[in-house]
């Protein structure tokens, strides 16, 4: 294949490895176009910005998940860690009276620590990530309920200001969380492409046995990606607590599936070793736009909502594959 492209140097076709991402991007554009034609208010630029506003936390969580999936692992605990973070933040702020500048680093640390611990178990005891993080999922959710079974509202001024202030561009705006999420994505993308940690992440996903024999620090990398995912989940939890201004044990139920779906739709292989963070951003947008289309439609009953989400997912992934396959030839 490589030599094939080489034969027609004049033909500037995109590198093969970017095709999944490009396919996703073009389909996303088409989807947006369809929405804009069907629903009048849809074409307002703010609609797209709202997709970011409403999914900033998912974006951060999915970014962490991308690291883990790139190594060929998976992290099912993210949704629960998000919930735990909201719960911890709320209870520390409201009930323990901690100041925000102490709460923030603390909850982020707890998230990273949970991820770190899971990474250690996965690596040193050679237990499958799916199971370790499933246990982590139970643990974090269980910890939520030990704090409280009901929701705790957050009234801290810093939190409320993060929730209610807007970053404006002319008539458009986003929330500060969106900025945070974008920074996370940019930093993440940089780490993946320009640091040893990032490259080792890809290498382990490509072939863990080889990575070990090549003398790469497999242990450190593997544990770090889970710590990153834990950190991102906690950060996502903080953003969610800005968004909701509450802590609750039932927040973010099933978010792990959304995050995994976003990563995979973005073109990252679950077997590891191949994919980009930009893809994950697109994946989150796809989920967000599907949701938006359904809300704009406003005529679907509960079950039709689910069926239509499933159908749109199907069409999207199918087309993505078809386009990808055609371009790759």
């Amino acid at each position, binding site marked *: 294949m490589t030599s094939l492209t080489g034969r027609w140097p004049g033909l500037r076709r995109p590198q093969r490895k970017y095709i999944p991402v490009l396919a996703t991007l073009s389909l996303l554009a088409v989807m947006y176009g369809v929405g804009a034609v069907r629903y009048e208010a849809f074409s307002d630029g703010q609609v797209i910005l709202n997709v970011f506003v409403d999914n900033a936390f998912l974006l951060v969580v999915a970014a962490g998940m991308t690291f883990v999936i790139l190594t060929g692992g998976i992290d099912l605990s993210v949704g629960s860690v998000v919930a735990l973070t909201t719960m911890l933040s709320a209870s520390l702020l409201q009930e323990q009276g901690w100041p925000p500048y102490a709460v923030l680093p603390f909850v982020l640390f707890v998230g990273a620590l949970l991820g770190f611990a899971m990474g250690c178990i996965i690596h040193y005891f050679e*237990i499958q990530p799916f199971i370790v993080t499933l*246990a982590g999922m*139970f643990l974090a959710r269980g910890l939520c309920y030990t704090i409280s079974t009901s929701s705790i509202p957050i009234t801290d001024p810093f939190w409320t200001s993060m929730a209610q202030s807007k970053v404006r561009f002319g008539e458009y705006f986003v929330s500060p969380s969106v900025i945070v999420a974008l920074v996370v994505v940019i930093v993440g993308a940089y780490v993946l492409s320009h640091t040893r940690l990032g490259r080792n992440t890809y290498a382990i996903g490509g072939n863990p046995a080889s990575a070990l024999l090549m003398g790469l620090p497999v242990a450190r990398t593997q544990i770090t990606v889970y710590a990153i995912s834990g950190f991102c989940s906690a950060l996502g939890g903080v953003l969610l607590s800005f968004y909701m201004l509450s802590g609750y044990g039932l927040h973010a139920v099933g978010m792990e599936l959304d995050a995994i*779906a976003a990563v*995979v739709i973005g073109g990252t292989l679950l077997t590891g070793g191949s994919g980009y963070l930009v893809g994950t951003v697109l994946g989150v947008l796809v989920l967000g736009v599907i949701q938006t289309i359904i809300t704009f439609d406003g005529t679907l*009953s*509960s*079950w039709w909502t689910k069926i239509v989400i499933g159908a749109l997912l199907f069409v999207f992934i199918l087309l993505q*594959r078809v386009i990808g396959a055609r371009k790759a030839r």
Partner: protein
Amino acid sequence: MTASLSGHMSALTRRRLFWPVTILIVLLLANLLFTPDFFKIEIRGGHLYGSLIDIVRFGAPLIMVALGMTLVIATRGIDLSVGSIVAICGALACLWISGQDDQNSVAGVLTAVGLALGLALVLGLWNGFLVAGVGMQPIIATLILMVAGRGLAQLITDGQIITINSTPYKLIGGGYWLTVPFSILLALGAVALAVALTRRTALGMLIESVGGNAEASRLAGIGSRRIIVMVYVFCAFCAGIAGLMISSNVSSADGNNAGLWIELDAILAVVIGGTSLAGGRFSIGGTVVGALLIQALSTTIYTVGVPPETTLLFKALVVTVVCLIQSPAFRAKVFQRRRRPSARAAAREKTKVEVAP
């Protein structure tokens, strides 16, 4: 020589099951502290009655789902849609029966069962087509049906809980046959069928081959696609039966809650049973033990009286312990045995060969 070899093999599998079985027993014994007659099995009203029977009876749907999941996982796949299939099949069967004038008509019930399982096969075919035909990653391919299927189940029930009153249907998940809960017999039958299908024919080996190395299998002439499709169809079929059991047990179909999160429990059961999520080797016996372990855990939580807000912590603890103890790496690192120093001494009287200068 053959005999000794197969003897060796089964010793191996036995060792693989040693830990899950031990933990299962420990868990059951723990109940004894709280409920002295936990192990008592009696005949009450012509039925076997007792906590142990309950564990198997309530565990039967999980065994079914995990059984299908085992084969899917062996091909390096995963099926997230089983919960939705459970809901859909229960819903369709109950809808059909509720529409009958005589809900107790055996013919009507059989039609309902046939329709529901037929639909399950179609859904399995759909999953198999997406994975093997279109080439989607299994987790995403089955996520589609997981999401849409819940909607479908609710569409069938119109969002309500369909309640039926049908004695023949009740038999499937809540009835007894020769004093034994029928669901246990069904699960036993399915396990026996799966074992026969995979170990008496070459299917098991071909599945393990496809899961171990799909490309090598293709080049060895194995119709990997057909096998993958078959496995998803079987998995959906098992989930369909589980759906019938669950809805029959409570004589109603709940499109929303039936089989919710059962996929996670099933995957957990498979892994506890020693089948790797990376595909390849699988163990049906292990899966059954895993499923029973999970059900025993729930029952223990109820009988011991773990408060609801800490049940998840408890579950996390047990899952972690089970997996750690099962992990050879953990045992090696934690209960580190001394290195055998004798190896060198024993080899001293070797026939040392001359070394060129």
